[in-house]
């Protein structure tokens, strides 16, 4: 390939230099670094396989602890949680029929599947009654 500036002939000479003695000392510096990196690995206080075992055992203990805590939760706490949940669910139940509400409860595992339908129907019925009372009261007030 020809070029009017003839750059190809001139440019192949190496214009770069290195500090004096660079290549002579490189091997020593490199071996020092390799030794330092190897020492870092050897000096690890706890060997890597042991760390993996400890992490695994810790994970099992944490999961076990959470499971036990859930299992032994006081019945009163469960009841209070359920009551709070019912209040929220009751709000959403206003515009839903029994079957839809029951399905939502079961799908979201808000209650054990076996109890979901009965509890849901109870809530919806309670809402209906209240609504009727309110509507009746409003009609009476209007007249």
């Amino acid at each position, binding site marked *: 390939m020809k*070029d009017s500036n003839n750059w190809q002939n001139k440019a192949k000479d190496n214009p770069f230099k290195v*500090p004096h003695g660079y290549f002579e000392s490189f091997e020593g510096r490199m071996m020092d670094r390799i030794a330092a990196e190897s020492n870092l690995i050897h000096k690890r206080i706890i060997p890597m396989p042991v760390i993996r075992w400890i992490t695994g055992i810790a994970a099992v203990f944490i999961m076990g602890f959470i499971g036990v805590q859930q299992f032994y939760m006081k019945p009163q706490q469960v009841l209070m949680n359920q009551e709070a949940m019912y209040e929220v669910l009751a709000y959403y139940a206003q515009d839903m029929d029994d079957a839809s509400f029951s399905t939502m409860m079961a799908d979201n595992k808000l209650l054990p599947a076996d109890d979901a339908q009965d509890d849901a129907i109870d809530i919806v019925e309670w809402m209906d009654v209240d609504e009727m009372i309110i509507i009746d009261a409003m009609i009476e007030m209007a007249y």
Partner: protein
Amino acid sequence: MTDQEIIVLYKQKGQEEKAFTELLQVYQERLYWHIRRMVTNHDDADDVLQNTFVKIWKALPKFRGDSGLFTWIYRIASNEALSFLNQRKKRLALRMDDPDQVVVNQLEGDEYFDGDYVQKKLYAVIETLPAKQKIVFQMKYFDEMKYQDISEILDTSVGALKASYHHAVKKIEQAFKED
């Protein structure tokens, strides 16, 4: 010592460091110049070269010999240099600097660069090439390597390498014509 002799020595129990020292002696200078032309600055080249050899040392136990030792070592060095160039570009871009111009300015003031006008101009243009084109141009033009060897090292088809080299040469020629 040949590549094969280095591998045989490395596989002997207790001879790993000796084999690695031999490998250093064979390759340190060749790899240095390979990397230096890519990164241009001596300190950067020294860092990249050291990182390359640390990676080689760590990876040697897994070297299966599917490719030649030369190819394998050059691949590690090339990847390390390309990775450095990408990081440098991002770093300079974050500082809102023009990465190519910064490197050209560094070259101007580099006490370890002794090029004439044509060489300064050439390296300034090379600096503007995409990293992959840059490495292909360097391996073909300066190191005078065969496309087949470059293909194995960079894991790129010979056709793609020829295209990269062609584009690089065209850009350099154009830059010199405009000069």
